[in-house]
C-alpha cells in the first residue's frame, strides 16, 4: 500500500469536515472505551496481568532468535513450512510463488494487518488472482477500494447507509437497510468463495514455539472457514509474535479481547498446527507460515524495542483524541493512531511520516490503557527528537521555535510580548472566541480559539496581590 502519511494535515482537515465520517466515528467512540473499562473493572487481576504481559514480552524479545528457531522446528515437525522474509517485497514473492505453484485462482483472506503492511492484495490481483477479504469489515472496505481505518474494526469509518450503497452496487439490489440483512447478504456471497478457494491466507495473533501452532482470534468465524476450506493455508505474521508456550499465549489472550473489543473473550480462538493429518476429513493440504521482519529486528536494537510488545489490540487508537477526531485514513498508511504514529516512521522512514509523531497531545491515555504497557507518548517524543536531530523539522516551525526560545530566555522581553499578544487577541475576539486567526488557520478553520482575558496571568496575579 502506498504511503500517504505526508498528507496528514490535508487529510485531517478533510476528515474533520466529512459529515459521514464524523457520524461513524461518533458512534464508535463511546462503545469501545466504555466496554473496555467495564471489562478491566470486572477483572481484579487486570493490572497484574498487564505488568506480567509487559515483562513476559520483554523476556521473549531478549531471546527472540531462540524462540523463532524453536518455533520453526516445531512447525516443521508438524508438517508445515516456515518462510522468512526480510522485507515486504520478499514476503510478497514468497506468497506469490506458493499461489502460482498451486495455480491459485481464488484466494480468501482472514484479517491480517501484516498482509496490508506488505501490500499483498495488490500483488496477487496484479497476477490475475481473485482475492476476497472475508472479515466483514475488510470485505466492506475492499468493495469501497479503501484501506482499513482501524486495526480491529477496519470499516469503523463507514456508516450503515454507505454499506448499503456498497452492497447494492456489488451484489445487485434490492438494497438492504437493516444490519441483519446486510450481514446475511455478505454471508451468502462469501460462503461460495470459501468453498471455491484454492488458498486461504490469515494473520497470526500468536505463534507458539512449544507446539509450532499459529493462533487467530476472531468473532465471525471467517478466519476458520478461510483456513479450513482452502487447499493451502498461509499464515502471515511479524517475527515478534512468537511466544514460548500455550500458557504464555493465554496471558496475552486474557488481555487482548478485553482491550480490543471489550469482551471477556472473542468468539473463536483457533490453534492451527500444521496441515491436515492422514486421517483428517477436512483442512488444508499445505500449511505455510511467512515470518516477516520488515524493520522489526532493527527496532529491537534501540529505544523502540518496547513497540515490539504490541499485540495489535487497537485500544490506543480507541482512546486517542486525535484518532477520534480525524479517523484512521488521515494517518496515510496501514497502522493508525498512537501505535501507527510510532510504527509508520520506523518502518517507512522518518521523513515519510513527519506529521504523525507530532499529531499527539501527549495526554497519555494510550499508554494508560495499553495492555502491554508500551510508553507510546515517550516513543513519540523520542521520534520528534530524532526528527529534529536529523534536521527534518520544517523550516517555518524551526524559525518559530527559535524565535520563541530567543524570547523565552529573556524574561523581560517575553512578558512584554505576552502583554501585547494578550491585548491584541482579546481585541479581535467576539464573546471570548476567535473565529479566524491569520497563520493559525489550521486551528481556526475547524474550531474557535478561546481568546485570552486581555491581561496576562502575571499581570492579574500582581493586581490581585496589590489589592490585598
Amino acid at each position, binding site marked *: 500500500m502506498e504511503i500517504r502519511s505526508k498528507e496528514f494535515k490535508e487529510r485531517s482537515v478533510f476528515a474533520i469536515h466529512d459529515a459521514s465520517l464524523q457520524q461513524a466515528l461518533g458512534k464508535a467512540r463511546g462503545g469501545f472505551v466504555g466496554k473496555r473499562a467495564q471489562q478491566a473493572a470486572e477483572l*481484579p*487481576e487486570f493490572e497484574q*496481568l498487564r505488568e506480567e504481559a509487559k515483562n513476559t514480552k520483554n523476556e521473549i524479545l*531478549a531471546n*527472540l*532468535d*531462540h524462540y523463532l*528457531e524453536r518455533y520453526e522446528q516445531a512447525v516443521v515437525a*508438524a508438517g508445515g513450512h516456515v518462510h*522468512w*522474509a*526480510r522485507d515486504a517485497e*520478499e514476503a510478497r514473492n514468497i506468497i506469490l510463488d506458493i499461489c502460482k505453484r498451486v495455480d491459485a485462482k481464488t484466494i480468501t483472506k482472514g484479517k491480517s494487518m501484516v498482509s496490508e503492511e506488505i501490500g499483498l492484495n495488490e500483488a496477487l490481483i496484479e497476477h490475475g488472482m481473485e482475492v476476497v477479504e472475508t*472479515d*466483514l*469489515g475488510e470485505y466492506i472496505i475492499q468493495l469501497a477500494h479503501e484501506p482499513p481505518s482501524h486495526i480491529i*474494526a477496519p*470499516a469503523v469509518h463507514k456508516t*450503515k447507509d454507505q454499506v448499503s450503497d456498497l452492497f447494492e452496487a456489488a451484489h445487485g439490489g434490492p438494497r438492504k437497510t437493516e444490519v*441483519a440483512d446486510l*450481514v446475511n447478504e455478505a*454471508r451468502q456471497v462469501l*460462503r461460495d468463495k470459501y468453498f471455491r478457494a484454492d488458498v486461504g491466507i490469515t494473520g497470526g495473533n500468536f505463534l507458539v514455539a512449544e*507446539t509450532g*501452532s499459529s493462533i487467530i482470534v476472531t*468473532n*465471525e*468465524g471467517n478466519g*476458520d472457514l478461510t*483456513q*479450513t*476450506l482452502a487447499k493451502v493455508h498461509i499464515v502471515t505474521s511479524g*517475527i515478534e509474535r512468537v511466544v514460548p*508456550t*500455550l500458557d*504464555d499465549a*493465554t496471558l496475552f489472550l*486474557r488481555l487482548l479481547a478485553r482491550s480490543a*473489543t471489550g469482551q471477556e*473473550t*472473542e*468468539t*473463536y*480462538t*483457533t*490453534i*492451527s*498446527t500444521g*496441515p491436515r493429518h492422514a*486421517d*483428517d*476429513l*477436512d*483442512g488444508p493440504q499445505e500449511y505455510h507460515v511467512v515470518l516477516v*521482519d520488515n524493520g522489526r*529486528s*532493527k527496532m*529491537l*536494537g*534501540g529505544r523502540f524495542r518496547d513497540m515490539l510488545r504490541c499485540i495489535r489490540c487497537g485500544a490506543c487508537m480507541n482512546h486517542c483524541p486525535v484518532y477520534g477526531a480525524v479517523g484512521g485514513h488521515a494517518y496515510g498508511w496501514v497502522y493508525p493512531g498512537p501505535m501507527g504514529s510510532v510504527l509508520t516512521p520506523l518502518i517507512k522512514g522518518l521523513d515519510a511520516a513527519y506529521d504523525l509523531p507530532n499529531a499527539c497531545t501527549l495526554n497519555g491515555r494510550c499508554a494508560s490503557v495499553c495492555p502491554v504497557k508500551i510508553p507510546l507518548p515517550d516513543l513519540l517524543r523520542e521520534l520528534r527528537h530524532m526528527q529534529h536531530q536529523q534536521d527534518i523539522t520544517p523550516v517555518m516551525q524551526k524559525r518559530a521555535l527559535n524565535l520563541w526560545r530567543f524570547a523565552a530566555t529573556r524574561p523581560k522581553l517575553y512578558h512584554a510580548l505576552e502583554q501585547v499578544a494578550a491585548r491584541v487577541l482579546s481585541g479581535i475576539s467576539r464573546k471570548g472566541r476567535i473565529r479566524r486567526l491569520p497563520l493559525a488557520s489550521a486551528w481556526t478553520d475547524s474550531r474557535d480559539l478561546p481568546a485570552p482575558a486581555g491581561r496576562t496571568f502575571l499581570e492579574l496575579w500582581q493586581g490581585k496581590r496589590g489589592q490585598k
Partner: protein
Amino acid sequence: MNARVNAREAILNSVRSALKRGPLDDTQRAALDARIPQHTRPAQDEDLVARFMRKFESRAGTVERVTGFDAVPAAVEAYRLGKGLPARAAVGAALKDLPWPADFEMNHGAAGIAEILSVSPAIAGIAETGSLMLAAGPGSPTTHNFVPDDHVVVLEASRIVGHFEEAWTILRARAEGMPRATNIISGPSRTADVEQTIQLGAHGPRRVHVILVG
C-alpha cells in the same frame, strides 16, 4: 546457498546484532526450554459447571443438561424439531454409536455447503470464559464447527476445567499429539462491523447449543 536460506540467516543475525550478542549457547538454551510459565490465573469462586453455563449463556449460547449419553439423540431430536429442521445432520463419527433414531440421516464426513445442522463432541469445557474446546480429527471434522447454521456440541460435565491452562494440559496429554485445528468456541459467530451493532451468525453458526452430559 539460496535466497531463502539467506533471509533466515540474515533475520536471525539482525536479531542477534540488535540484542548485541551472538547465538545463545546450549546451557542458555536449555535454561529457556526448561522455563515454566507461572502467570496469574483470574480467581474463580464458583462451581465449574455453574460458571461454564452462566458464561456460555451470557454469550448467546444455549445449554441443556442430560443425565447420560443415551439421552443425547433425543435431545438432538428435540432441538432439531424445535428449529423445524429436516432429519439429517453432520455428526462427528466419535458420536456415531449413540442410539440415533433410524430415520436420522448422518454425514460423518466433512460438512458441505448445504449442511445446516451438526453435532460435535467437545474434548473440554473451560469455565473461565464459558468456552468449548473441540479437536479436529476423524471423529470431529472442523467444517462441522463452522459451516452449518445450527451447531450442537456434546460436552461431558466432568470435562469442564477452570482455566485455559488446564485445557492445554489435556491437549498435551493426547497420544495422537496436537490436533490440526483446536477450536475454542464461545457462543455463536458474531460481528459488530456495521456501526458497532452486534449481529449473530456472521459467517459461522447462528446458534450454538450445548448438551451437557452428566
